[in-house]
């Protein structure tokens, strides 16, 4: 029983940290983009503008939470909740540190993939329930994009599974104590990152939103708290993909081999995540959005063969006991 309570406390702490972190991420992103574009970014609210997100949150809470009369009201309300919940659920299997982590599910990786696939329902349902053409187009794009990219997202991590021999993420991390999987799985890592960006609808793969073409894509009709949930989902998604990359390819909480262990494991984990988040922001700053057909063609014609090749090669090398 106390174990149960301890678990609940742990879950609460993780959620309580993740959500403000997602909010902070908005500010971090805007400041970083600012820096890279020779601007300052938001710097007025609080020291260095750190409270900008809270000002934004206050504003967004003050907005009318409007449900369009022409929409499918129940689904319209449900969609953003599904999105946020799916991402949050995925965090359950992330091993933050040797002794931190909600669940050591032995099919942790599969659970993550399942949740990532479920998240697309949020977008598709939002697009459909809005009963507006821009939203629907956004939803359709999201469906096609997610379905395509989750295929080789799954394939790309199989190399890791082969190497670690487990779907349990904690074991995946531990399996890297001899050397991070990035050494052998750089192709898998690349495919995973690209697929991850696509799964979380981040630039340059934010075609479901594509404000230059579709007003605001699937969330055109959303406002107020529901819109905030989508936003939350997106930034949690960024964090999640970063965390997964770290866990799968960059040794999780493990310190880089040559360094001493004078920092706690969780800090290493956070530092690594931060690196990937900044990488995602850099991508957003520098790369333009491809056309939708280019996106799908890139997925099926480049990424899929790459992922298959990676899997085959890894399997072959494993069989030959090179790895």
């Amino acid at each position, binding site marked *: 029983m106390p174990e149960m309570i301890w678990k609940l406390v742990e879950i609460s702490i993780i959620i309580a940290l993740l959500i403000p972190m997602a909010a902070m991420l908005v500010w971090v992103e805007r400041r970083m983009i*600012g820096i890279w*574009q020779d601007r300052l970014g938001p710097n007025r609210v609080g020291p260095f503008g750190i409270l900008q997100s809270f000002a934004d949150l206050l504003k967004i809470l003050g907005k009318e939470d409007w449900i369009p009369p022409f929409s499918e009201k129940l689904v319209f309300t449900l969609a953003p909740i599904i999105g946020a919940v799916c991402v949050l659920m995925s965090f359950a299997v992330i091993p933050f540190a040797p002794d931190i982590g909600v669940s050591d599910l032995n099919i942790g990786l599969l659970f993550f993939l399942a949740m990532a696939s479920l998240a697309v329902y949020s977008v598709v349902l939002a697009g459909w329930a809005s009963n507006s053409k821009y939203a629907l187009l956004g939803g359709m794009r999201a469906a096609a994009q997610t379905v395509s990219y989750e295929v080789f997202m799954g394939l790309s991590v199989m190399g890791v599974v082969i190497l670690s021999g487990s779907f349990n993420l904690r074991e995946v991390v531990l399996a890297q104590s001899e050397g991070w999987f990035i050494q052998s799985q750089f192709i898998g890592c690349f495919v995973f990152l690209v697929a991850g960006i696509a799964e979380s609808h981040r630039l340059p793969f934010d075609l479901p939103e594509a404000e230059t073409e579709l007003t605001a894509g699937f969330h055109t009709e959303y406002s107020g708290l529901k819109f905030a949930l989508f936003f939350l989902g997106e930034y949690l998604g960024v964090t999640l993909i970063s965390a997964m990359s770290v866990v799968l390819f960059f040794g999780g909480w493990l310190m880089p081999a040559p360094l001493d262990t004078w920092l706690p494991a969780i800090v290493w984990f956070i530092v690594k995540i931060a690196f990937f988040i900044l990488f995602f922001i*850099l991508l957003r700053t520098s*790369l333009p959005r491809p056309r939708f057909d280019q996106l799908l063609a890139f997925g099926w014609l480049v990424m899929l063969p790459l992922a298959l090749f990676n899997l085959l090669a890894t399997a072959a090398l494993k069989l030959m006991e090179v790895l």
Partner: protein
Amino acid sequence: MFSQLRTMWLVLKHTFTKADTVEYPEQKPYLAPRYRGRIVLTREPNGEERCVACNLCAVACPVDCIALQQTIDDDGRKRAEFFRINFSRCILCGFCEEACPTYAIQLTPDVELAEYDRQNLVYEKEHLLIKGVGKYPDYSFYQQSGIKIKDKDKGEGVQEKPPIDVKGLMP
């Protein structure tokens, strides 16, 4: 692929360049004298209004935010009975200044045009008219045109011959 990576690298390099942002209002940016800000109506060197209410600014205005009505004063000058600019519509494009044949309407480097109430952005002639000559210190339209006004009779303007004696027979 290489181009994408190069782009990312170039962007990344900007981490170490200084931001161009000027922190207005603590820091005031430099605005050149010909900057296109708030619109004013200027006067001739002798203090008379330059605007002759010809309506060219109004017709040049792409957002139709200038309205005026012409009137003729006792001294023979044409002036604007009223002259109104709706700055809540104005896009500060400067077309009015370019269209103005008398250098009356000029844009100034004052850009601080914010109001809490849009109605306060409607400027009438008394708000627009300044005491000075603006960017063109010497120009006086009536000296260039053939029109007779109180203190300038026919033939007394720039590049004008004295009026013709119709009854004269000399060729």
